[in-house]
């Protein structure tokens, strides 16, 4: 089978990667980390999940229909939004629905701009382009949303007296916590902004590395990478903005006071 530029990994070569698992296991055993079982289970799961998704994606790329692509992306958004809110413990409400909405909105808004306007494949909904791009946006947006939400609730919990004093002055709920809303959004965006600063100097990101390994010229691969970086920045900004916009109201009663679970009675 002919390959244009990239070096394929055979099943035999894949088996050799077990050496790396053995090294990790050896470190765990030597230091008594008690992680061997988790490591083996994790390795097995990763292999099975990746193999399955490899076949599934091959099938979906062949079908190349929006009837399959859209439900798949929505399912991914659902799983990612649950993951984003799983460790949020200080929320006065279940933030899963708001998280799903912000993740889906940021993924679709930015994803469509990138795929349709910037990359422009034919047809525009080419699964081979759409699914990886949407997936990258989603993964980054998910982390940003989780960081934003966590920061929002932590800030308000830590500044209940200030929030209540602002409300007592006659401030609206928005006015009373706008400072913490800003901090929450910037907290979600910080890793992305840091990534923009160091890309190409400290790190060669996954997508660019993958394309170079696949035989693409580095000069061309960086163009894709640049689009990916700014797309992630836009998606995290939109995702964080929507999640704090949807979540902050749940911290207040209809009378514009903090709900009991947020304040000290």
């Amino acid at each position, binding site marked *: 089978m002919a390959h244009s530029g990239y070096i394929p990994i055979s099943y035999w070569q894949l088996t050799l990667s077990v050496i790396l698992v053995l090294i990790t296991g050896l470190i765990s055993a030597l230091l008594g980390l008690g992680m061997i079982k988790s490591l083996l289970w994790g390795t097995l799961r990763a292999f099975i999940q990746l193999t399955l998704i490899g076949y599934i994606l091959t099938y979906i790329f062949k079908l190349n229909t929006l009837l399959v692509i859209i439900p798949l992306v929505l399912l991914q958004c659902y799983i990612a939004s649950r993951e984003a809110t799983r460790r949020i413990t200080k929320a006065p409400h279940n933030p899963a629905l708001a998280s799903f909405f912000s993740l889906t909105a940021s993924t679709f808004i930015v994803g469509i701009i990138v795929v349709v306007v910037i990359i422009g494949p034919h047809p525009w909904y080419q699964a081979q382009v759409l699914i990886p791009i949407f997936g990258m946006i989603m993964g980054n947006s998910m982390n940003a949303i989780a960081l934003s939400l966590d920061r929002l609730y932590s800030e308000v919990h830590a500044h209940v*007296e*200030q929030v209540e*004093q602002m409300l007592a*002055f*006659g401030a*609206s709920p928005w006015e009373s916590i706008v400072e913490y809303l800003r901090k929450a959004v910037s907290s979600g965006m910080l890793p992305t902004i840091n990534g923009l600063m160091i890309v190409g100097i400290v790190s060669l990101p996954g997508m660019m590395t993958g394309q170079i390994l696949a035989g693409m010229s580095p000069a061309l691969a960086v163009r894709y990478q640049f689009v990916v970086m700014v797309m992630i920045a836009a998606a995290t900004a939109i995702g964080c903005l929507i999640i704090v916009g949807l979540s902050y109201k749940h911290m207040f009663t209809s*009378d514009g*006071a903090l709900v*009991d679970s947020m304040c000290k009675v």
Partner: protein
Amino acid sequence: MNALLEFKNLRRYFEGEQGRYVMESAVLEPGTILVLKGPSGAGKSTLLKTLARLLQPQGGQVFLQGRDWLDYSSSEWRSNVQYVPQKPVVFSGSLEDNLRLPFCLKATQGKLSYEREQALHWLERLALPSSLLAQAAATLSGGEAARIALIRVMLLKPQILLLDEPTAYLDGENRLRAMELINEWVKTGAGRGVILISHNEEDLESLPEVAVLNIKARGEE
């Protein structure tokens, strides 16, 4: 004469204390001070916060000059009825930024403006130097912050002040000055009133006449 503020069977439970609640009724006449007394944990602060509409009551009625408090929007209510918590709250920036802060809100813009002369006058009355205005608020002592918090709400020209232990951070002379100013404030404007919490008998002795409401926590029947 119409009551300035009247609350009837105003009921609110305490968070974290199973089955305990405060339920009180009282009338605040114009130009008077109502003192809430009672042991710690009786619900005095809870009652004050409920009157500020920072806590939602579980029952009862409140009237401001005969008008049901539900007829007021929450920001309208809080503009008329200003609340100062026991632990004074200061925000980042200078002390003057802190005094100006409430005037930057939507609820006050176009209706009220910051009066520097008045602020300086009250600073002097409370034995605070005017140079303090430029100082970073974070560097204020507890006593200074408490006096600033009092001046800040008086500048907002409310009808009613709800003060949770306004002298808790003050020493003898400053306590007296603060109580004198509160008393003067309530007497000079038309239709003003104060509800305050105090554990200090000296504070109350410094006031010519006050009404007292003894608060006690209740348990679920």
